[in-house]
C-alpha cells in the first residue's frame, strides 16, 4: 500500500522538489533576460552580469565578507577546539550546565542576538564596524564548532593519546601528533561550516555593522530594497553557483 509505486506519493514528492527548485531556476533563467522590468522573455543578454562586474560597492562588500568570514572562523575554531577538549577531557561540577549554556546561541532568535550585541557595543562606546561584526560572527559560530568537534572527540579513543604520553610525549606533542590529526576531518568540516554561516549571515550583521562595514548579504539587501532589477538576478545566480560549488567540494573532500 504505502509502497513507493503509489503514484500520489511519487507525485507529491516530485511536486515538493519542484517547489524547492523552481524559484531558484526561474531566478537564474531570468538573469539572462534582455528586458529590464517585465517577466516576459525578451532575448538573451549578459548585460546584467557586465554591470555586476563593474560594481565597486559589490567588490568591497565581497572583500569585507571574506575578511570577516576568515577572521571569525579562525577565532571560533581556535576557541571551540580548546573548549571541546576542555569539556571532554576534564570533568568538573557544573560541566553539564555549562555545556547546555554554550549551546544557547544556536537556539536564540537571531534578531535577539543582533539587538543585544548592538546594545552592548553602544553601551561600552564601541563604534560599530567590521570589528564588531567579526566579534559577533565569532560568538555565534563558536557553539557550531563546539558541537561538531565535541561529537567527534567523543568517538575518539583516549587511550591513543594516553599511549603517546606513556611513550614519553609531552601533552602538546600528544595533542599535535595524535589527537589533532585524528580530529582533522571534523576541524575542516567545522571550519567550512562556520565560514559559510558567517559569509551568509544577515540578521546579526545587520545590527552590528556600522557605516562602511557592508558585507555581501547587507549589500544584497540594500539592492533588493532599492527595487527589482535583473542585476540582482545575476548576483543571485552567481551566489547559487558558488554555494553549489562549495557543497560539491566539501562532498568530494569527505569522500576521500
Amino acid at each position, binding site marked *: *500500500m*504505502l*509502497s513507493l509505486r503509489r503514484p500520489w*506519493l*511519487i507525485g*507529491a*514528492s516530485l511536486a*515538493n*522538489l519542484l*517547489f524547492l*527548485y523552481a*524559484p*531558484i531556476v*526561474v*531566478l537564474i533563467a531570468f538573469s539572462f533576460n534582455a528586458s529590464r*522590468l517585465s*517577466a*516576459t522573455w525578451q532575448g538573451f543578454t549578459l548585460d546584467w552580469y557586465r554591470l555586476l562586474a563593474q560594481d565597486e560597492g559589490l567588490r568591497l562588500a565581497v572583500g569585507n565578507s571574506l575578511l570577516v568570514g576568515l577572521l571569525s572562523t579562525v577565532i571560533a575554531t*581556535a576557541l571551540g577546539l*580548546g*573548549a571541546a*577538549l*576542555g569539556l*571532554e*577531557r*576534564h570533568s*568538573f561540577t557544573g*560541566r553539564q550546565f555549562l555545556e547546555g*549554556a*554554550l549551546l*544557547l*546561541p544556536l*537556539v*536564540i532568535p537571531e*534578531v*535577539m542576538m543582533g*539587538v*543585544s*550585541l*548592538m*546594545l552592548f557595543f553602544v*553601551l561600552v562606546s564601541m563604534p560599530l564596524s567590521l570589528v564588531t561584526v567579526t*566579534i*559577533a560572527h565569532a560568538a555565534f559560530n*563558536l557553539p557550531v564548532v563546539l558541537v561538531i568537534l565535541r561529537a567527534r572527540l567523543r568517538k575518539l*579513543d*583516549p*587511550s591513543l593519546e*594516553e599511549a603517546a604520553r606513556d611513550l614519553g610525549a609531552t601533552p602538546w606533542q600528544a595533542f599535535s601528533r595524535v589527537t589533532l590529526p585524528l580530529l582533522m576531518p571534523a576541524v575542516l568540516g567545522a571550519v567550512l561550516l562556520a565560514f*559559510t554561516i558567517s559569509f*551568509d549571515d*544577515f*540578521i546579526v550583521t545587520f545590527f552590528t555593522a556600522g557605516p562602511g562595514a557592508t558585507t555581501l*548579504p547587507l549589500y544584497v539587501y540594500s539592492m*533588493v530594497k532599492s527595487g*527589482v532589477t535583473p542585476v540582482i538576478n545575476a548576483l*543571485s545566480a552567481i551566489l*547559487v553557483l558558488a*554555494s553549489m560549488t562549495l*557543497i560539491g567540494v566539501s562532498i568530494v573532500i569527505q569522500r576521500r
Partner: protein
Amino acid sequence: MSPPVQPTSRPDPSHFPVKRRGPSRLLWPTLIWMGLFFFLPLALTVAISFASRGTYGGVVWHLTLANYLTVVDPLYLKVFARSIGLAVATTALCLLLGFPLAYYIARLPANRQGFWLLLVMVPFWTNFLVRTYAWIFILRAEGLMNTVLMGLGVIDHPLEVLYSDSAILIGLVYGYLPFMVLPLYAAIERLAPSLVEAAWDLYATRWGVMWHVIVPLTRPGIVAGCLLVFIPSVGAFITPDLLGGARTMMVGNLIQHEFLVARDWPFGSAISLLLMAMVLAGLLVYFRTEEPGRGAGRGKEMAG
C-alpha cells in the same frame, strides 16, 4: 605509572574524564568570549527592558514595568498574534508537504537516500536573501506568476500577492521545509516496515494505518521537525521584511522598528524577551513530549 593500555574502540572510563576542581585552562578563552559577547549582552537586554527611554533615544535607568504593560495594546498584540499564527501555519504546511517527501525518501533503497537528501538540502544552502528575493520576483504585480496567469487568460488583472500574509507564509514554508523533511525522514527510516505490514494484515484501512501506526511511531520526528520550523518562523525577520511590507509586521520586524526607527530600546528589549519566551515555550513543549522509550524506538523493539 598508568595501567597497560588495552586496544579498544570505546573510551576507558577509568581514565577519562579526569576529575578536576574547575574548568580546564583550555575552556577559559571560550568562557570569556561567550560571557562577554553573548551572555553579558543578553543580561543587558533583560536589564534594559525594565528601564525607560531617554529623550533622544538612549536609556534612562528609571526602572519600570511599563514596557511590558505597553505590549498589551491591540496594536502590538496583533503583531504577536500574526507571528504565532504564521509560525503555526508554516509548521502545519511544512508538515503536510514534508511528510510524503520524507516518507518517499525513507523507503528508497539505502544507497539512493543520500542523493535525495542532498537534493532537498541544496536549496537550503543557498543564501536566504536570494531565496526570498526569488519569491519577490515571482509574486510581485509584474512578476512571473501574474505574467503567466494573465498570459494564460486565467485572470484579468494582477493578483496582489506580494506584501501580504500569504506571501510571508509562502516564503517561510519555502525557507524551512528542509528543516521538517530531515527529522521526519530520520524517524520514518527507523520505522520497522513489518509493523505497517502487520496492520495491513489485520485489515486496517489506509487511514487506519496512517493514523494508528505510522504517525504515533514517528512522533519524535514530527515533534522535532515542528519545533525546527516553528522557532525560526516565529522570530523571522528577513521574510516578513522583504515579502511582507510595512503593514504586515512580525515580531522580528517590530523589534527592529523599535530599535532602529522609534529608538525605544527599553521597549524593544521587552519585546525581544517576549519573543525569547515564546521560543522557550516551544522548547519546553518539545522536552515534555520527548520521554524515553516512546515512539520509533519502541517500534523497533516491538518488531523484534
